[in-house]
Structure formats: C-alpha cells, structure tokens
C-alpha cells in the first residue's frame, strides 16, 4: 500500500517515503477535523471547500493542458454546464436537491459536448489556436445561456428554491470526495499507457503519430476526461450557492484560476497542481476577504508574474533547491 501510494502521487518522485507519509497525514486530518469543530461556524471550512473545488478543476485541467499539451481556456464552459444541469433538472423536477444522478448526468453531458466540440477543434487547431477556440466556445456558451429565454432563465439565472438543508459538512465531504477521486484517477492516468501516449504526443506529435498513436483520438479523450470534473464541481457549486447565473458560472475565472494554479505549481505535474491550488486558493481567499475590490487585479498581476518569473513552476524550483 505504501509503495503503491508513493508511486501514485509523484509523477517524478518515485520512492519517497516522506511524500506518502505527508499525504496520508493530510488526508486523515481533512477527514477527521470536521468531527472536532463545528463546520457551520468557522470560515476555515468554507476556505477548504473552495480550495477543494479549485484543486479538482486544476488537476483535471492539467490532464488536457499539462499531460496532453493542449492549452485550454474553456473549462468555465463545462463548469457552467454542470451548474445548469443541476439547476434546470431541479427546477423541472427531474432531480431532487443534491441528487447523485444530477452529478452523473452533468459529467456525461459535458463529456459528450467536450468530445463533440473537441473533434473539430483538435483536428484542425494547434497550440494557441486551440486556446482561442476553447475561449470562444466558453464565451459562446455564456452568451447562449444569457439569451436562452425561459429554458435557461436568461440573464437573471435560476434560483433553486428549497427549504431542504443538507448542512455544510455535506458540502465539505462532497468536495473532499470529488477532489480525492480526481487526484486518484488522474494519478492512475499519469501512470497508465494512455498517459504515456499523451506525453509522447505532447513532446512530439509527428513522432507519436509515426509509431502508431492515433493522436487525435487521444487528445479528444484527454479533453473529455478533463471536462467531466469541472462539470461535477459546477453541479456541487450550484447546490451550494442555490443560484445559477451565466455571468457567475460561465465566468472566465473558472478556467483562468485552475490554469494559473497548475502553471504556478508546474505544468504537467500532479503534485504541482495540488501545491499551486493551495497557494493560489489561499491568496485568493485572503485577498477577497481583506481587499475585495482589488481581487481580480491582484490575480491578474499574479498570473503575469508567474509567467515571467516562474515559467517552470514552484514544484520544480523546490526540487532543485532540495537536490542542491
């Protein structure tokens, strides 16, 4: 078990016992700490809930952008889709509040849409053209939902009216579970043959094609796998906020921040994405707590600073310092 976990968590660190130990302690702490404190009363719980959501999206973003090398700025589209599946399903009486079927359906819908959009985009567009295309898709969806009329609730959005309250610990454990599953699945993906093929096509597409990898299929596969997680998170977010509005759930922040987190941690490394989402999540929370007006300003500046000063990421930097 121990060896398995350590192989699991580090793409690059293989036999480090420290990592296994630290991650086990973290997981235990996160499972147990709601027992000792009242989650409804402390801000810290909300703080962790938020970081979990960002961490899940960031880890899944890393699959398509870090592992497969296809930069996407369109993950907000899938987040918004998930939120709207939950909201419309609840309003029209298909699902009850906090329904497991809504989570599954939103994941399936967004995987199908990601595959449908991904085939033409990934077949024709390389590099930043794909980035522009995904940004276009997510903005198009936002405007479609604003102009959707009765079905999407227009610019006013949809309110999930219910007296039913699941309590904050439910949200906490749901987000924790989603994040844990995401990390586990993506760790399996990183170590699997699919992950190897994706890495091969990232490093040299022509060479990968010449040894018999169907690059297009693999890229679309990575794109749709990475689209499922934001949709599930969006679903959870809709249930948490009980209010869905295009400019909130299709906000470019939902694709920007996960990208920023993975970039800060180190593109294409699982631990990097986790570290990055903790660092940036904490900074975002502190800024929005103390200087709400400056919040996007500082994150924008941070994004630029990361790109200019730390292009390889924090994780690489720390590893270099430890090695020295």
């Amino acid at each position, binding site marked *: 078990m121990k060896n398995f976990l350590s192989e699991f968590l580090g793409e690059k660190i293989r036999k480090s016992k420290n990592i296994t130990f630290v991650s086990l302690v973290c997981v235990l702490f996160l499972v147990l700490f709601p027992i000792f404190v009242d989650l409804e009363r402390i801000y810290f719980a909300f703080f962790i809930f938020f970081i979990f959501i960002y961490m899940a999206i960031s880890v899944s973003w890393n699959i398509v952008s870090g592992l497969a090398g296809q930069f996407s700025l369109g993950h907000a589209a899938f987040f918004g889709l998930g939120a709207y599946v939950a909201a419309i399903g609840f309003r029209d009486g298909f699902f009850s509040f906090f329904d497991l079927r809504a989570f599954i359906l939103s994941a399936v819908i967004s995987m199908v849409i990601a595959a449908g959009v991904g085939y033409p985009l990934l077949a024709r567009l390389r590099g930043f053209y794909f980035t522009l295309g995904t940004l276009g898709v997510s*903005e198009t969806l936002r405007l479609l939902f604003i102009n959707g009329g009765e079905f999407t609730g227009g610019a006013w959005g949809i309110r999930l009216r219910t007296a039913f309250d699941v309590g904050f610990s439910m949200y906490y454990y749901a987000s924790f579970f989603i994040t844990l599953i995401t990390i586990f699945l993506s760790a399996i993906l990183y170590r699997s043959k699919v992950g190897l093929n994706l890495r091969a096509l990232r490093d040299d597409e022509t060479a990968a094609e010449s040894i018999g990898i169907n690059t297009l299929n693999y890229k679309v596969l990575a794109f749709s796998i990475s689209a499922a997680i934001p949709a599930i998170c969006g679903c959870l977010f809709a249930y948490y906020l009980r209010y869905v509005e295009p400019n909130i759930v299709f906000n470019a922040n939902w694709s920007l921040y996960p990208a920023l987190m993975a970039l800060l941690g180190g593109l294409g490394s699982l631990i990097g994405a986790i570290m990055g989402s903790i660092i940036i999540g904490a900074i975002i929370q502190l800024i929005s707590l103390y200087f709400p*007006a400056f919040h996007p300003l500082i994150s924008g500046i941070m994004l630029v600073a990361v790109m200019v000063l730390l292009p390889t990421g924090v994780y690489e930097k720390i590893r270099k310092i430890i090695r020295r």
Partner: protein
Amino acid sequence: MDLNLVIQILLYGVLRGFVYSIIALGLSLIFGTMKIVNLAHGTLCILGAYFAFSMINLGLDPYVSMPLLLPLFFITGICLYLGIFQKTRDPNSSTVSSFGLLMAIQTLIQIFWDPTPKTARSYFSDILIPLGAANIASSRIVLAFLCIFTAFVLYFLLRRTWIGTAIRATSEDAETSSLMGVNVKWINCIAFSLGLILACLAGVAYGTNYAFDPFVGLPLTFKGVVVLTLAGIGSTLGVLITGPILGIIEGIVGFQIGLGWIDIVAYLMIIVILIVRPYGIFGGRRL
C-alpha cells in the same frame, strides 16, 4: 424588407467595421512580428477610450486629446514589452500572461472609473449628416476617414521606410535579420508600441461613437482576430474590406435576431474560420 432599412444597416455596419479593422491592424503588427498573442489588446483600446473620456472634463475634445494620448501609449508599449512580453514570447505563454494583463487593466478601470457604460462624446457626435436614407453622425464619418488614413499610413510605413523593412524582415526570420544588422530587440519593441498606438486610435474612435464599459475589451479583441484571420495576416489593406464585412454581418444579426446575439457572431466566426480557412481570403500567411 424596406430598402432604406437595408441601406441603413449596411452603412452602420461598414462604419462600425472600420474600428475592427484598426484593432486587427494592431494585432497583426504584434502577432506577425513577434508571435505574441495579445488578448489584452481590446481592453487597452477601452483604456484609451476611458482616458479620452476623462479628458473631456478638462475641456478637450476626444479627437484633440488623441494626439496627446498616442505618446503615452507608445511609452506604455515599451514598458509592457520589456517587462512582460519579452520574456513570454511564444503564443501559449503570451496568451496566458496577456489574459492576466487583461484582468488587471479591467479591474483598474473599475477602480478609477466606474463600470457603467460611457460614451466619450465629441464635438462631431452631434452634427448629423444626411447620407442617402440615413442620418449619420459626422463623428462616424471622421472615424471612417481616420481608420482608412491610418491603414494607408501603416502600409506606407511598412513598405517604404527602413523601419518597416526591418519589421517585415524580423517577422520573416528574426535570426537572419539580426545577422543583417537589425537590432531585433528594439524593432520588436517598436512594433509592439506601434500596435499599442493603433489600439489607442481604435479605442478613441470607438469611444466617441459607441457606448463602452470595461467588459467590451475581450469581445473587441476577438472581433479584431476574426477580421485579421479573414484577411490573412500580413495583408494590411485587406482588413479594410474584412472589417466592414464583419460589421455588416453583426448589423444583420443584431437587427434580425436580437442585440444580445451580436457578440456570438465573432466567437462563432473565429471557430469556423480557424477550422475552415485559416489562410484568410486574400492569401497571406497562416495566422
């Protein structure tokens, strides 16, 4: 449909489209020379419009204050290039860093001004000229002439002067041109700043005629990219035709379907164009 109505839609579309042409020119200068994707371009345009708006309070007409703003944007361009874009040169990282820049500028605008829609009304905005079936504010005519004039000046600059030759050489092959004695770093810097000057021009032209708020920046960038992709990169005068085409399509969509759908046109067009015909109508290089 009424013929007068058709003429009006066409005229308004063409005049609006010239703004997109100038944005496309700025983008093509920056992208063509350095392969930098500047997503913040449209937001920088809007920043120019806000500066012009504030100058009105000092009693300066936007078209008068525009020459004063151009050097400011030139210097900003030099700072941005040396500070940020010199280190994030490839398309991927410049996309991300310019998106960060976009967020920062957007928030700065919201802090210093407020996010309600504004118009920087010029002296020309109130003089109406009857042009066939439509009454057109003369500021839009000024805008059209300004845009056409700018495109021709840029064409002349790129084709006939040594600095234009150096910019074109750098965009073809930076390494070889540096062997031929071109200071690539400064040529890139100048090209970037020229791009920002074009952004300022487009912003003031847009601001005197249309309502703007901090959030129209990204759609404007996208419209610029659409126009640029349609024309094909490196085709300086081609954008003068494709800009109005986009303007007309937007006008028709806005009239027939609804104003809320206008921005979708650009987003859908960019996806379709990139997939179907990435070389543009007028040939040129691939964007």
